[in-house]
């Protein structure tokens, strides 16, 4: 009997080795553990043994059964693992196939830049104010200390309407409208479209500007520098250097043009910055007393500063588009790039 058990064990283990499929495994299991299986049959023969033989044979029989049971279980697991590995291998995909990209649109690059600018100033407490594109001479020029015979008017080639209105040449009229409607403290930015008779690689007849205005009881030129420096660092990076240089605008005094170190050459001088190492980004200055007078503010009681920047210019410091008119062609191959 003991020999029989040993034989069964070694036969079963050998047979297990050759099993390749779960069906074969099941047949093999039945061949040994089934009702008439070899192991079952031998176990049934136990009861014919003498009382002396039974304990030793019983012990061996149990050992054989449990070791075979475990071997069968291992085989089940091994087969399952093999099957899974095989399945995973079969399921491999061509990773170069194009993905199912969800469709998504993109905001126009000018609008992306505009939004960036707005976000920065909003964080500094500025609110968005708006005004009409079709303006009067009064709001666009006179109230901004640019009377009819002022030479500065020639700097703006203005589109006039047949009804005597004009297309605003800058978003600065919103300054005046805001000050007419509210009292200091005022902190606004006025994004919008502006228009000038101009059409070449660096000018479009319509463009976007962001005007800013801060008026309070004691606003200083140094604060103008602070706000614009903070803006430029957020917009162009911490390492950017700033330059404020004197300039002339009729509606601010002192006035400044503001440059940042060239984003191409970091200030060493290159073709993009005309060798100067600087790129102009905006105009600014302390609000001129004549502008306060136009809105009935007392220039002794309040001071302020204003600034204005061209969104296309700011955008192009980043994008470097050789012909700025490309922004308005709305070519999808262009728009998809941003």
């Amino acid at each position, binding site marked *: 009997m003991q020999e029989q058990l040993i034989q069964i064990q070694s036969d079963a283990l050998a047979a297990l080795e050759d099993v390749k499929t779960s069906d074969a495994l099941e047949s093999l299991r039945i061949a040994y553990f089934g009702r008439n299986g070899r192991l079952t049959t031998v176990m049934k023969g136990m009861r014919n043994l003498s009382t002396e033989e039974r304990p030793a044979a019983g012990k061996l029989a149990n050992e054989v059964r449990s070791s075979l049971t475990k071997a069968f279980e291992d085989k089940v697991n091994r087969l399952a693992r093999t099957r899974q590995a095989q399945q995973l291998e079969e399921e491999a995909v061509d990773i170069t196939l194009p993905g199912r990209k969800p469709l998504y649109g993109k905001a126009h690059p000018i609008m992306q830049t505009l939004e960036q600018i707005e976000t920065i100033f909003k964080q500094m407490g500025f609110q968005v104010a708006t005004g009409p594109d079709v303006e009067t001479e009064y709001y666009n020029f006179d109230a901004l200390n640019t009377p009819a015979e002022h030479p500065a008017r020639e700097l703006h080639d203005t589109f006039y309407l047949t009804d005597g209105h004009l297309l605003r040449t800058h978003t600065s009229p919103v300054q005046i409208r805001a000050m007419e409607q509210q009292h200091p403290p005022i902190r606004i930015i006025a994004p919008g479209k502006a228009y000038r008779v101009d059409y070449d690689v660096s000018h479009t007849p319509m463009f976007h500007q962001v005007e800013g205005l801060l008026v*309070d009881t004691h606003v200083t030129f140094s604060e103008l520098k602070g706000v614009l420096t903070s803006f430029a660092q957020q917009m162009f990076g911490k390492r950017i250097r700033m330059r404020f240089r004197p300039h002339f605008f009729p509606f601010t005094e002192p006035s400044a043009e503001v440059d940042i170190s060239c984003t191409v050459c970091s200030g060493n001088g290159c073709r993009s910055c005309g060798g100067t190492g600087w790129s102009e980004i905006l105009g600014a200055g302390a609000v001129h007393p004549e502008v306060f007078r136009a809105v009935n503010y007392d220039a002794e009681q309040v001071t302020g500063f204003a600034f204005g920047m061209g969104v296309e210019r700011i955008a192009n410091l980043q994008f470097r588009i050789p012909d700025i008119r490309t922004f308005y062609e709305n070519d999808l191959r262009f728009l998809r790039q941003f």
Partner: protein
Amino acid sequence: MNVTLNWLKTYTDFAYSARELADRLTMLGIEVESIKQLGTELTGVVVGKVTGIHPHPNADKLLLCHVDVGDDAALQIVCGAPDVREGMLAPVATVGAELPNGLKIKRAKLRGTISHGMLCSEKELGLSNDDAGLMELAEHIAPGTPLAGALGLDDIVFELEITPNRPDCLSLIGVAREIGADTGNPLKLPEVHLQENGGDVRENTSVTIEAPELCSRYAARVIRGVTIGQSPMWLQRRLESVGIGVINNIVDITNFVLMEYGHPLHAFDYQKLAENRIVVRRANRGEKLTTLDETERELDTTMLVIADAEKPVALAGIMGGEDSEITNATCDVLLESAHFQPASIRATAKTLGIHTEASYRFERGTDAEGVIPALNRAVQLIADFAGGTVCEGIVDVYPRQHQPIHIELRPERVNFVLGTQLEAGQMHDILSRLGFHVENANPDKYRFTAPTFRPDVTREIDLVEEIARVYGYDKIPTTLPKGNIPVPVPKPTVEIHKRIKQFLLSTGMMEVVNYSFCGPGSFDRIRLNENDVKREGLRLQNPLSPEMSLLRTTLLPSLLENARHNRNHQIDNIALFEISTVFIASKEPYRVTGILTGKVGGGVYEDAYRHPDFLDIKGIVEGLLEVSGINDYTLAKTAEPTFHPGRNAEVLLGKQHIGIFGEAHPEVLKNYNLPYRAYLFEFDLDALTENAEPVKRFEPISIYPKVQRDIAIVLDADIPSNLPIEFIKITGGELVESVRLFDVYEGEQVLAGKRSLAYTITYHSGTETLTDKLVNRVHGNVIKRLHQELGAELRM
């Protein structure tokens, strides 16, 4: 305006390099737009001394010269110029030089003899038209000196942007004064010592000002017996270096003084002036004058002329007349120095389209007190370089004396405005260097007189700016605002715009931005009715082109144009939108407008490309209304000629039209060369914003299970698909949570004129678990009702 480094140095001392000077000027508010090195075209040309001349072994007309160019060994140069002689100094173009006429100098064999360069004439060097012989140079120059340097041609030109408020800086002296304010060095003005031997000027001429409102001052001098000829080389070089053409000594001198003082002068041929006198008056209407540019000008009474006893001889402050110009025959000169009213000069120059160096300066405002120094300086130069005798004295008519401007300055205010802590003394220093004269020494409240050349400075803030820019903007501290931040006012408009834009982007549409302009042709292309108010766009007086002559009243033409552009570039999946204002009468309402044409879909696998249809655009419109929080709208077909008559709908809120969408009319497609059907929408964004529900409220979500039943019904094909939904909802009442159409079928399986519509009805209760019994009863009622009201048969 152009200035040069060497020229500037004659008026004030400074040690800046070109780059440093450019930086300093820029930081003073005079932006340097470019820096150009002169004389580079003469690189490789040096001064040579002819040390020996020998005959050429193989040619009679050539000579072998030995030329000392400062090196150890003399160069052997073959020369054909007959005037070459031993000991002379002449320019030598050495091997490697490229002359202005394009000639490259190489080591060459001439008739078998090697030549190491070329001796040059003025013409060969592009210095003049003189090719009579070699250019002879002054003897004291050391051989080997670069020619550009020897001739003073190695100057550096700065192109300056002078802001319109600074007419004083349209001159070398003005710019030098600014440099002096920076360095603290004094200004060195030219010295004038006139010998006036020509008899009293008053016996030679007279000046009458008949229009003192346009001419506040007119001064004249007379110089007799001048010799017209070339001006001296140095003067020619100066003018050429700043881009002014050389004419003759008299004209060159007036131009030189114009650049030097910024004060335009005019020289008349004294003998050509009727009665030898000057009348400053308005032109008569229709009066004619032929100006120096050989153009006959018709004048009117707004224009100021300089006339003699009979006729206009110059357009005041703008351009002289041809009849009285300086010619080679001129012997006696009347020199004008005057002050004209800026606005009048600007208006005349603009009307006649003449813009000159003179008008440019008079328009911006010249210095009435600068009239005499400029006049005297020019007369001195004429006496020096054109000979002649200067008549004694000046005829100076000055009907409107310049009134000095006094300005009070509170140093404390300066610091208040700038955020600085400057000393009063510092401010005083800066202003003095700029030519401001202090009248009292009270450091709490100075009183300054503005120099007459600064018409731009009239008030305290102007002085603040002067102090700030000379002190240096870069030294003003950088601080953050200390004031209160105003309480923000919420703007629901902005919020809705943002939501709509986000939604449209999420559908795959791309945002475009177009010009606000359109042309009348665009209204025809979208087939607007003749009487459509949208045709009444605001009109530009000065459009860039007819197609940009109106302001947009609708965004549709722009988007169709964008589609055309992209289609022309073989781009087929076109889905665009724009959010912008349009211009209707005096209002600027917002529109959101979109176009869908060509292909939709991802283009891969089961999401293959297909052409969009009405339901694509409608889906976008539905989403747009949903994100705007607008639910109770209705649709109605319209006869808008832009759209396909059977495939469009306007969106109504009650009776208010808030938008339209649908398929573009085939004629519109043709007008924009679009090969595929196109789908459009245009919404009144302000109406969406006004009716939007900005506040969203929570609706409880039922915890009970829902029951879905599908039905397919067959009914007349002309019954709109939403009608069954209405009846289902009415019949099912509160238990019907939603009804969704999921299939439409027309074809063989149903009778002609009928169609099958399939809906999923979701029954749901917020208070109980629905039993089959209840749902069956309600669902049965629904089917019965659909049959009764619409003749719907259940499709099996």
